[in-house]
């Protein structure tokens, strides 16, 4: 366990360094992002003063360690655009993203697993083809297309557009909040259902070819029980792996879907930060995203131990 935690910390440090360097490689800085071409009118003295204000006059190494040092004191940075600390901003945006991720994953599992089992129940049959086609559609229809189409059709034909209202947090207005989560969850869930469906199908087919299934059948285990306990139970490990992975990605923020449905999630926070060249905001937020990814991975491992005695024994 200790080794895992050390590895996780090394990963986070790597992410921090990588993001730091990438950000500085993007042309422009906070001065030109704020002033645009008006920055051409700055006098050298003003330029210097602004650089000092944003800390851009410091050597890169100093910038990095002053940011890292601040992280350890709980200071993740300050966004001049929003006039709020990164901690406050993240406290608002992360719950939005987590909520969206949970809904999307649940939806994806509800679509993906039954569809995968349906496909696997009779390989190369019409029902398998149906499952495969749905899966392929989920993979190949771009999220932005599905999202824009859904939104436009529902809004213009039925006047239904909960996302046209200001974003409502769950605690303030749960009913509106759930409606606002509905369409984006469908779009994301549909996309993620595809890999889950394929994983399920492959895993189920593989398990079914094992000797113990034949034995169970021979012993007269009823088909339904056989499917649920013996087959699906054993196929769960790869499904959980895939789900954990997808959930981790979702926590990084689904930027496109957040943009189209006006959800103030963490993806948009990073995007705005990059556009505005708010270095500390982007660095800290990406670190938080990486941290959530690591935590989800750890939780997935814990889940393995629960569902698979062999992992526990190892």
């Amino acid at each position: 366990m200790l080794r895992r935690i050390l590895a996780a910390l090394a990963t986070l440090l790597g992410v921090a360094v990588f993001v730091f360097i990438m950000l500085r490689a993007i042309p422009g800085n906070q001065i030109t992002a704020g002033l645009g071409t008006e920055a051409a009118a700055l006098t050298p003295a003003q330029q210097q003063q602004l650089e000092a204000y944003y800390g851009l006059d410091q050597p890169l190494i100093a910038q990095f360690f002053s940011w890292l040092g601040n992280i350890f004191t709980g200071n993740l940075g300050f966004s001049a655009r929003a006039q709020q600390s990164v901690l406050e901003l993240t406290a608002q945006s992360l719950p939005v993203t987590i909520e969206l991720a949970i809904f999307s994953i649940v939806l994806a599992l509800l679509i993906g697993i039954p569809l995968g089992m349906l496909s696997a129940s009779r390989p190369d049959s019409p029902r398998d083809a149906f499952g495969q086609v749905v899966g392929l559609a989920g993979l190949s229809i771009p999220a932005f297309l599905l999202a824009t189409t859904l939104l436009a059709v529902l809004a213009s034909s039925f006047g239904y557009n909960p996302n046209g209202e200001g974003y409502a947090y769950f605690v303030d207005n749960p009913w509106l909040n759930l409606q606002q989560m509905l369409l984006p969850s469908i779009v994301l869930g549909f996309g993620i259902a595809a890999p889950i469906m394929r994983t399920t199908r492959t895993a189920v087919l593989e398990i079914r070819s094992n000797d113990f299934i034949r034995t169970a059948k021979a012993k007269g285990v009823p088909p339904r029980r056989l499917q649920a306990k013996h087959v699906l139970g054993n196929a769960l490990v790869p499904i959980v792996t895939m789900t954990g992975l997808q959930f981790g990605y979702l926590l990084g923020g689904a930027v496109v879907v957040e943009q189209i449905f006006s959800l103030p999630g963490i993806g948009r926070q990073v995007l705005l930060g990059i556009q505005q060249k708010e270095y500390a905001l982007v660095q800290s937020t990406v670190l938080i995203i990486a941290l959530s990814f690591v935590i989800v991975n750890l939780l997935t491992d814990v889940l393995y131990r629960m569902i698979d005695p062999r992992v526990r024994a190892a």
Partner: protein
Amino acid sequence: MNGGNRGARGALAAVGLAAAVALTITGCSSAKPSPTEAGAAGGSLVVGVTSDPDTLFPWKATQFQAVNVLQNLYGTLTEFDADLNVVPGLAESWEASEDGLTVTFTLREGVTFADGSTFGSEDVKFSLEAIAAEATAAVARTSLASVAGIETPDEQTVVLTLSAPDAALPANLAVINMAMLSSDDTEAELNTTPNGTGPFVLEDRKASQSLTLAKNDAYWGDAAKLDTVEFRVIPDESSIVSAMQSGNVQLAVFDDPLVAQTAESGTVSVEKTPQLSYHALQLNARRGDLADVNVRLAIQCAVDRQEVLDTAALGEGEVTGPITSPAYRSDPDARPCPERDLDKAAKYLDKAGKSDGVTIKTIVSQGEYATSVNEAQNLKAQLAEANITLELEVLESGAFVDRWIAADFDAAVALNGGRPDPDGMYGRYFTSTGNLNQVAGYSSPELDALFAEGKQSSDPDERKDIYAQISENLEDNAAWIWLFTSYSYTAASSEVQGFTPMANGSLQYLRTTTVN
């Protein structure tokens, strides 16, 4: 209102800006409220916008959305009316002395800031001095370059002493970067708590989600008719259209004709407004082959502006000369090549000794505004027929701005902001001491003299004549290749009334808007 390159203002600037009035969430289904007496309409307006203001401090705001919000919160000494004429604002009147070296402003009485404190001459002195100070880094600093001294003989009077007559001053004072702030306020405070003299006050802000203004009952002019205006951030333009169709958003301003088209429906109408901003091929006349006026003229002659407009922008716009403000508009045909003329282009190239052709390195920004890359490609195709090779370098917006600022290009495909006063618009570009002259890449003693003359004359007809000469000079020397101006598209649902879109993109007429 911003003289800079509007198109390069981050993804935020060139994208559309949208506004909407929401009676309630279900604007379309609820019973219409009974008509109220005129002037007491009230109601709340939701303005859909693609981005949040990046600052609430008016002296440093250049982002389109920030400027639009702040215009409703703060006041300026002078203002523009719907036709961009300079009209009184916080200054009731002003008068220049015979020699033009003293301007006396009489301030309006009974004006208060949002916090209740009284506005007076001290605040004007404080504001103008701070804007002029280099340390403040205010974007309008150079507009006050001619101001040598500020006196406040009494509470309602401000006397400016000028180092040279400045006819552009009244127009320059009307931009929001010249907002009058209370002498008690600091930048840090105003970043979170605006305190202005405008028709609205800030009611609520949820960063990157929404910003709500409420009517300022103590406003010195006719009080705003709306109770509240919410700028709702909907990052995707087609999602704004959807929000308008579902009745959540009642007013929106778009730049992209295609998006505007989709917005038009039974309940939503779209109005076109010609803009001051202009599309141009900026030439850097201090570099390489472009230093020769004949090469530049060859480019001018080889370009059919209407074709660029038709190909890149669906014909949505008008071919233009340098000056775009209605009162001073350049005649687009007053140039050596009013029409495309390849023979003439070849002759100019011959004259330059470049009959084998020239190669021009051109920067183009991508993603800033919809038409940039298409314009560049059409220009390239047209110029190729004249033996002029445009070597296009398509850059992400941040990279484009960096190169533009450093004047590190032969030519640049640009969408630049225009201003109502031609001196404010081009003085900073084309006078040898202008702070953007390096980027403009061209100046001459004749232009310096003409611009100086334009500032000295306060007679409108004389000024028109001078700026016509400036415009002609710029075209005769092909300083840049001015292409076309485009429209902005104001989409409003039928219950919105009394809103007047402006050529500078300002939303100042939210104060006369009603929602039925």
